[in-house]
């Protein structure tokens, strides 16, 4: 994040890192040495200690920079959590027996309001017990085949989750022509094809797309009649949540759906991960639950009158909680209020921002926490 170096000083000292840990309705704050975070075991013990739950088995999760709730259960992901925390590390603790695995995964803190409330209020959302096959909650989906039930067998609709991964999408498209069966016989029609997969890219790593697959739709919009440049622009515009319907060049790996018609639920053919039932849309629609909601907005919150206004505007305590959480999450590289200067600018050209003292910010945060 480009601003971090300028405002690094504002987000606390460089050496230590603030940790805010939540268990049930309780918050604990403490600090960690950023350079020496230690082992996961020690951290786990520390958490049990600060929350005074020495003998309770818990699941530890944290909010990553994208607002996703990700688990901490070994040294690696613990170190990852510490290194990416900015400005503070937000920890969520659930009792293992009450744990809601569906809370983990992509975009959980941003999108899934119900999921979020699950995390916050584990006790009021106990409807669907989860079948835990393995530990999918440790991973993030990168792709899925969707709408298998409504598409012809020769087609495949692939969803690529670019969001949250560092990998490039990694594919190229080209013009070409394909032969279609029409009432008038075989016809050659222009089409768009995948021309190249970048080694190590998202597209290649999923194994769901291949060179010479014909692109039929992009996020629900047919590409026939559109130029290569238009399709390129459409794909880039949808790149954070790209859903491509292709006709694979290799038709041998197609899903055989005889079993499906016989009434089986057919989950086995569905590549997407269990635990995300709400993401498998039975009838696909090009709705954007993707990027745009994630526009980062940094507001000048220096005017104190805004606090009562915020309370007035929020209908329930719940939504207020949500707002507060996303504020603290530091997601998307957002740098809180000290980004914004209240100091009047000198008339000179060197406009320097006066950063607010960090303790003032802490006070404010604590103030809003009290309203919880």
């Amino acid at each position, binding site marked *: 994040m480009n601003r971090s170096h300028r405002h690094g000083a504002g987000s606390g000292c460089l050496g230590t890192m603030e940790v805010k840990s939540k268990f049930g309705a309780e918050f604990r704050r403490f600090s960690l040495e950023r350079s020496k975070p230690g082992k996961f075991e020690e951290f786990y013990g520390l958490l049990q200690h600060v929350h005074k739950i020495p003998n309770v088995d818990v699941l530890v999760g944290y909010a990553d920079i994208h607002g996703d709730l990700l688990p901490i259960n070994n040294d690696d992901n613990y170190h990852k959590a510490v290194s990416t925390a900015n400005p503070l590390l937000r920890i969520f603790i659930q009792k293992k027996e009450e744990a809601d695995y569906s809370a983990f995964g992509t975009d959980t803190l941003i999108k899934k309001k119900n999921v979020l409330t699950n995390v916050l209020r584990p006790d009021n959302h106990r409807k669907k017990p989860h079948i835990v096959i393995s530990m999918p909650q440790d991973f993030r989906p990168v792709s899925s085949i969707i709408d298998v039930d409504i598409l012809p067998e020769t087609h495949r609709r692939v969803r690529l989750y670019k969001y949250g991964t560092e990998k490039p999408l990694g594919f190229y498209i*080209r013009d070409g022509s394909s032969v279609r069966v029409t009432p008038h016989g075989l016809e050659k029609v222009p089409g768009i094809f995948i021309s190249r997969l970048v080694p190590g890219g998202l597209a290649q790593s999923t194994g769901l797309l291949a060179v010479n697959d014909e692109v039929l739709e992009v996020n629900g919009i047919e590409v026939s009649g559109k130029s290569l440049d238009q399709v390129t622009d459409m794909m*880039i515009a*949808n790149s954070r949540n790209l859903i491509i319907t292709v006709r694979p060049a290799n038709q041998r790996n197609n899903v055989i759906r005889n079993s499906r018609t016989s009434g089986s639920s057919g989950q086995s053919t569905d590549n997407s991960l269990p635990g995300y039932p709400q993401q498998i849309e039975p009838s696909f629609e090009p709705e954007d639950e993707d990027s745009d909601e994630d526009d980062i*907005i940094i*507001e*000048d919150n220096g005017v104190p009158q805004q606090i009562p*206004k915020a309370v007035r505007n929020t209908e329930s305590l719940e939504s207020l909680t949500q707002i507060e959480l996303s504020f603290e999450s530091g997601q998307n590289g957002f740098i809180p209020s000290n*980004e914004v200067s209240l100091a009047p600018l000198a008339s000179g050209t060197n406009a320097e921002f006066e950063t607010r003292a960090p303790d003032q910010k802490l006070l404010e945060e604590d103030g809003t926490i009290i309203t919880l």
Partner: protein
Amino acid sequence: MGAKQWQSLEAALGWVGCACANALASLQTVEHGFPNQPSALAFDPELRIMAIGTRSGAVKIYGAPGVEFTGLHRDAATVTQMHFLPGQGRLLTLLDDSSLHLWEVVHHNGCAHLEEALHHQPPSRPGFDGASGLPSLARITVVLLVAAGDLAALGTEGGSVFFLDVPTLTLLEGQTLGPDEVLRSVPDDYRCGKALGPVESLQGHLRDPTKILIGYSRGLLVIWNRAARCADRIFLGNQQLESVCWERSGRTLVSSHSDGSYAVWATDAGDSPTTQPTVATTPYGPFPCKAISKILWRNCASGEHFIVFSGGMPRASYGDRHCVSVLQAETLVTLDFTSRVIDFFTVHSTRPEDDFDEPQALAVLLEEELVVLDLQTPGWPAVPAPYLAPLHSSAITCSAHVANVPAKLWARIVSAGEQQNPQPASGASSWPITGGRNLAQEPTQRGLLLTGHEDGTVRFWDASGVALRPLYKLSTAGLFQTDCEHADSLAQAAEDDWPPFRKVGCFDPYSDDPRLGVQKVALCKYTAQMVVAGTAGQVLVLELSDEPSDQAVGVASVDLLQDREGFTWKGHERLSPRTGPLPWPAGFQPRALVQCLPPAAVTAVTLHAEWGLVAFGTSHGFGLFDYLRRSPVLARCTLHPNDSLAMEGPLSRVKSLKKSLRQSFRRIRKSRVSGKKRLTAGSKEANAQLAEQASPHDVEVTPVQRRIEPRSADDSLSGVVRCLYFADTFLRDAAHHGPTMWAGTNSGSVFAYALEVPAAAANSDRRPERAVEAVLGKEVQLMHRAPVVAVAVLDGRGRPLPEPYEASRDLAQAPDMQGGHAVLIASEEQFKVFTLPKVSAKTKFKLTAHEGCRVRKVALATFASVACEDYAETCLACLTNLGDVHVFSVPGLRPQVHYACIRKEDISGIASCVFTRHGQGFYLISPSEFERFSLSARNITEPLCSLDISWPRDAMRARPRESPKLSQANGTPGVVLGPQSRGGSPDPTRSEGADTPEPPEATLSPTSVDSATSADTTLDTTGDVTVEDVKDFLG
């Protein structure tokens, strides 16, 4: 109340029904400027109208200002010749594919239009006239209309003369005159086995239509009597012939030749055949001269005839000049033009009963402009043209439109322009081409088109009507010391007094210094203040003054890099301003100069005269300047630290093809800008770059292949500031509104600053002692990172905020400051409306995701209803990279309608597009022509005119009418509206009553927008959108 309800209903229904059809209509309406690549010229002395044909097959007829007709041949072939059928409003055109076309000006409901009536394609060589066995009509070289235009003589390359019945465009068989027939009357020693060559000239006798003067390339001149089928007289010229002119009495001939000489022959003296001319001279001899391609002889009552000819310059010394010489008695003027001479004609008496031509004016069509000289005023001054202005006299670099210009400012600009170009006192020197009547009403409002040019000038054009008239020219070059001064060319002109050159015309494409180029222009029409920003980061604030003055200009420089490390600017130097008091003529005079550092081209500029602020942006950042106190307020760097290209840091080894290509082009461009070492350093570097791309790392197997990758923060040029905007709105909280400034960048960032502008003292425009303050209020990073094209704030009623001073001077409805404001952010990929002061997404439309096209230009335009006088809606008009214009409701962002407007290949046309506030727009269809289009059915500027034509309307009327083409010259397809469907309303503002013209839906057929709408219908149900979008970081 009723109207308000209606409006909200419209908004709710998303323009279902009548409003859509009535308020919106799209089409190209008129072309402004000078036709690109003219190739032929014709003049009808009876109707006093002029026609210009172009190499793309366009035909344009001009009369009095506002009288214009346009036609386009079906084949985009060069128009080689055009001839008016005098007084009939008909025009015979010859294309270079040897096809003949007859055009007619026809009237529909009182308005005249140009339509192609007939065309004739002579069959190719074999078998055309097998019966007569004559040589084929291979290539027509000349055309002559005889017998009041009923008959045309066609001279061909083979030396034959064919005759054509014009009303039917059929060849008259059996009348053809072959070269053999002529040779029979020629003495044997002249014949000597050689062919006569192509027919070079055909001339008719003013009083005796049976006589035709035929000039052959070899030099033979024959006066042919068509009735008697014999040669009346023969002149045995031996010099290769270029052109012949027959004096009106018929007693004298003048022929011009390829060696730069002309010869005068007497027709009534001596024997036939005549072997020697009475006079033969080489005007620019004795050294070898170039050919005189056309010559005219015009006699006067004073006895001193005019000889006007083109070419004939000494080959070695002035062979590259484009000259027309005018000779009367002892007076010779060599008109020296900057572009090639296409053709010329004189405006003179053509009544047969007159004894003298008495030429009034000489009109010369050049490749790039039309020049008219007044031949009756001593000194033959040039007559300012009321239209056909060469827009591109220096290349257009930007343009802007100002609507509803107050009458006072208009008068001041006009007067400043008149002081620049003092009009000749005598009334005689008026524009000689006066045919037709302009039926269009006086425009209800004044529209000003500003064009910025490469040479640092800004030209002001009257864009209120059909004729784009130059008003005033502002030059900013005088403020700076440029590399080369004009002095040398003047000195050169002074040292030679032979030939007597006279520079004519204003086409001058050579710029002294490319840094002077104007990039952005903004004008406040209420205070007559403007800002002109250029290529070298110069931002000039000017104010209109009616008096000349001497003053020094305050210079400030603003470092947009701030303290960014590791940056070295490798581009051009900044311009060095002249110091000390400088004389400024009446007109716009500079008040302050801001120079950006580094001196990159200014990419965005905006002016708020009420607050005395100007904001400007470059590829490095943006700044705010208080020009009343002459002090910088703010500078902000927008460079991304990873942007190695913008930072000019060491080149990274691994980079995308796109990036490195861009880089090489940038380097090439840069080296060109710096000028000197273009070939050595620049191209070597570029070649190295290109070679690097050819390495296996990035070799593409398929030539057309596109990479699919989201934009990242490190993309190059992400810091370019794309738009700047001032608004009085709610940024801090919902209770207090105040001045704000918004800036959008190439990487999808929007910065909003709250401004503290101290109130100016009541009667003074001087700022009190306090400085303007700017505080960063909000920062929005669009996740899709597409460049931000425009930002606009909408008031509580969803209307855009008025311009500065507009509300305070009661010229616009005051904005609604009660309801919540919203900000519309248009990126290249999508439009979004966010609430204010708490920025949360309200509505959006993802254009690229749905249509695969990208936004190039947007504007908020007011569309007035045709059906209801005082009903208007504001819509967002958007031009895409495919050349389509889309219209969206505001703030609902629902697609209303879209049209194909510009060809998608026409990149410069798309880049040059400007929208007006009332739903019109301009774009360049060629370097010299603006096409005007109108999205509004109410507000249309198109030629509405009539011609008094007289010709027997007999059986011609029954002929099936062929579909006319009313498209523009370079063949941009688009919505072509037949003249018929609009003919019903000579008055575009008439709107009430039963005879309201039908909206031309049928011909327009706007593409259905249903598919696009359905995808986004969920957006307006605000419930979940607001919840999911909320990122409220209120403390």
